């Protein structure tokens, strides 16, 4: 995941020759049925899980069973689906994009979360603390962490140079392990962007939690499709932005406050 590389360390007026652990990054060209789908910049681990998660959250596949095989050769991953000719004969460029997300956001086309999962504030704090403790991050300062947790705790925690990749990777892992994602929640080290929200919606992960911030667009989409966003989980504090009914020890009044809308259906300006 990292290599010790030479660097000059400067402090005040002095410059010292030294080495520093630097996080590894590799390009991975993914093709589906012989057509280029994306080139991702990623960490060189769990590539199979990453590819599966990516195909799933981009809705190129609806089910892991649709993957016939994935062949890795150096920096390429060739995916064959069980019916490769649907995409082969398509005139439309189904697949394009570089460096990650390629689906534009159309809330109407995103699925609604379907889950009865609830968690309490204590579990949130403890799992965030556990998941985001990354020695690699301490060492290199350049890694994102995404953890997938369920009622019984940790399912998988992965690291990547990009948090979108990391989320795809845990989703791919869960699909391979046949884990019911509606019973899980995702914890990430970085900002909860609309793209993170979109991936959770497609995968039907009902709750996403971060130590960091979120965005207005992420909250809009989450509210429209029933996802719970919790940010700034630090010490005893946390901010719940949407889907408050899934936080077990929160009052229904508080949950309702988050869902309140103006009469024309728009968000209430506060």
């Amino acid at each position: 995941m990292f290599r010790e590389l030479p660097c000059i360390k400067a402090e005040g007026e002095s410059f010292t020759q030294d080495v520093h652990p630097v996080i590894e990054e590799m390009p991975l060209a993914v093709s589906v049925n012989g057509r280029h789908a994306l080139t991702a910049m990623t960490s060189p681990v769990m590539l199979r899980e990453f590819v599966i998660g990516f195909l799933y959250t981009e809705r190129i596949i609806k089910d892991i069973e649709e993957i016939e095989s994935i062949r890795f050769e150096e920096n390429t991953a060739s995916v064959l689906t069980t019916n490769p000719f649907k995409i082969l004969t398509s005139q439309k460029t189904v697949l394009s994009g570089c460096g990650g997300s390629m689906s534009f956001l159309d809330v109407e086309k995103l699925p609604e979360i379907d889950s009865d999962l609830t968690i309490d504030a204590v579990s949130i704090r403890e799992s965030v603390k556990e998941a985001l403790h990354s020695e690699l991050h301490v060492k290199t300062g350049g890694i994102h962490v995404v953890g997938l947790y369920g009622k019984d705790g940790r399912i998988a925690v992965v690291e990547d140079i990009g948090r979108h990749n990391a989320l795809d990777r845990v989703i791919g892992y869960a699909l391979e392990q046949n884990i019911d994602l509606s019973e899980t929640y995702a914890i990430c080290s970085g900002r909860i962007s609309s793209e993170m929200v979109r991936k959770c919606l497609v995968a039907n992960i009902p709750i996403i939690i971060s130590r960091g911030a979120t965005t207005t667009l992420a909250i809009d989409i989450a509210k429209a499709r029933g996802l719970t966003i919790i940010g700034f989980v630090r010490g005893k504090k946390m901010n719940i932005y949407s889907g408050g009914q899934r936080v077990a020890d929160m009052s229904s009044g508080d949950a309702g406050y988050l869902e309140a809308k103006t009469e024309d259906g728009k968000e209430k300006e506060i």
Partner: protein
Amino acid sequence: MDIKNIRNDFPLLKDLAYMDNAATSLSPETVIYAMNEFERHYRSNVGRGVHRLTTVSTQRYWDAHRKVAEFIGGENGTTVLTRNTTEAVNMVACGIKWQSGDRVVSTLLEHHSNFLPWMKLGERGVDLALIEPNPDGSIDPGAFESIIDDNTRLVALTHASNVLGNVLSVKEIASICQEHGAKLLVDAAQSVPHMPIDVEDIGCDYFCFSGHKMLGPTGTGILWMKDADIDPLLLGGGAIESVSRDKYTLAKGYQRYEAGTPNIAGMIGLGYAVDYLERQGMARIENYEKKLTRRLISGLEEIEDVHIYGPLEMDQRIGVVSFNMEGIHPHEVSHILDEASGVITRSGEHCCQPLMEYMGLQNGTVRASVYLYNTEEEIDLLLDTVEEITRRL
């Protein structure tokens, strides 16, 4: 096993009791579909092209190799597509750098395809030593112990006899070979289709079998090698890493042994055949076939004037059953079985003339060989017809 559903996958079985599986098996619809799909939707060559069709065919072709390798527990070796077992054996016979005085040890049980390539090496000063089996086909591993000498480069023997149906203790023989520094080639044409196989557990060096006997297409066979240590039989396109005016570097992996455009549809079909067998489960197939074989043998035992060759017990045998009827040529028996009842069997010497000669079976035998799609009713039909023939005599 859901035999009714299985039979639906093999339309040919509707009218026939097909029991010539030791010669070639039938292919299920999934295999036929996969081959048609290749022809109709993505026919293209495999290898280094980049267009969309070749990408799909190359991956399917490559996947088929992987599936076959996993099927026999041979992921750590090299799995090469050949035309059949015969070609696989010949590739080894031609690919070893023999020296005059080398010895090959084999047995009198062997199919011509695992016999002639070794005999032919006599022209190069290689001595062929043959072990004679017991009347039921069995060979005591001790016999190998006493015949393998320091000059023995290779032992070539069948895993299961295509005439007598007995299974040899290849694992035990493999360790004898290892002690003497001899390589072991196993002709697994009759075993791979009918029982769970783990080549690493066996400990052999070369493992040869046919795709068409395991529900795959005709024109497919496999040479599996523990180490890719033989010279390729053919050189040409696809087998090299690089070529200049005066030298070449061979490709890695199976590619170096597959010069020229291979049987792409066939190999892809074979991959689907492996999928089919794995879905049924090889242990279950083996058990089911033992049940059928037990019924067949005990039925034949009860009919007067029928002689059965090979072991009568089930523990060390496959569902290949050879028999003769007193006073009637095996071809005639086989012909009547087909004409009268639609029971398809094989008759003659089964490509084992030295064995037939050794056993004093001038005209060979009638051979019934079962597979996962045969039924007890079909066995009874064969038995009834044989009985009918005895009454007519």
